[in-house]
């Protein structure tokens, strides 16, 4: 136990503003906020798709609102920032060993980015086929 003569400063809730490293940490944690907005857009889209053609057209128009595009652009940047941080953590949390050797972390990060590119290519094919 701390002696009564000692001084023990309590961590205040603005602790993360005191160091640039902690601001970056909070930015990483906050990437989920624009993500939630995008997911909410998708749920609205699913609902309108169930409502019928007119409702679906309304949703497509809603998605064109400059404010909605701006927030989703933020979500896009947030998803890439999240990917950048998340891919670096992965080799540290689960170092993969192949033939008795740990895979170089950079190779694992690169492999994950290739996954992102592959999904982009897949999405291009899905949305552009038959147009």
């Amino acid at each position: 136990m701390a002696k009564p003569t000692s001084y023990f400063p309590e961590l205040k809730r603005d602790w993360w503003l005191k160091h640039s490293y902690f601001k970056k940490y909070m930015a990483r944690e906050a990437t989920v906020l624009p993500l939630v907005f995008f997911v909410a857009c998708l749920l609205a889209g699913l609902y309108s798709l169930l409502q019928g053609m007119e409702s679906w057209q309304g949703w497509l128009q809603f998605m064109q609102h400059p404010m909605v595009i701006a927030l989703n652009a933020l979500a896009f940047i947030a998803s890439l920032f999240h990917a950048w941080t998340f891919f670096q953590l992965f080799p540290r949390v689960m170092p993969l060993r192949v033939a008795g050797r740990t895979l170089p972390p950079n190779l694992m990060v690169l492999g994950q980015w290739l996954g992102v590119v592959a999904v982009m290519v897949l999405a291009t094919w899905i949305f552009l086929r038959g147009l």
Partner: protein
Amino acid sequence: MTIKQISIQRYLPEQGSAPYWQEFDVPFDDSTSILDALNYVKEELDGSLSYRWSCRMAICGSCGVMVNNTPKLGCNSFLREYQGPVKIAPLAHFPVEKDLIIDMTLFLDHLAAVQPYLINDSGEGSDTFKQTPAQMEKYKQFSGCINCGLCYSACPQFGLNPEFLGPAALTLAHRYNLDSRDQGKKQRMPQMNREEGVWSCTFVGFCSEVCPKNVDPAAAVNQGKVESAKDMLIGIFKS
């Protein structure tokens, strides 16, 4: 020699309850460490200044202080690295006894809780335990800890909840769990499985940034999460 002004956080419990900042002018060159600066202040300017130090070569781990809000070993960081003001304070998230001296009891209790030593009752290898270089490679990175406590001062989760076992203790637990000579994993897992074990960590990662021995405690703690998750799954299948 040029002169640099440094600010040191003073706390003298016998004179008053509030800490305060005091400025000192310290001559320095390229080889002047933060610890050298503190020694200069004590010897030449104010003999009442209290701080811990011993080896001055980053192995004893006793001269940790906050320099501009970042945990550092005084002997291992130099005045030449700081262009602007230099503010030296006691290590964060610990009770302060006097000036730059903290009470490390909490840290030592957390270390002891994970039984950071070889546990092996098999009787074999009673002279020496054999270990191959490949077996040693598995834990070697995590065995460089000098118990300086910088990672605890870098960890906001420890700052928010002092009950959190914290980076160094969890790293040592993982280090011994990975050791081929050790059989104590079963005894350590209940500590790691707790809310205040590995699960209070949110991978801020600052502990690994400040570690003077590049132990990467954040990686060890998060590998500990994988182990704890496996331990839970095994428990479910066994029951």
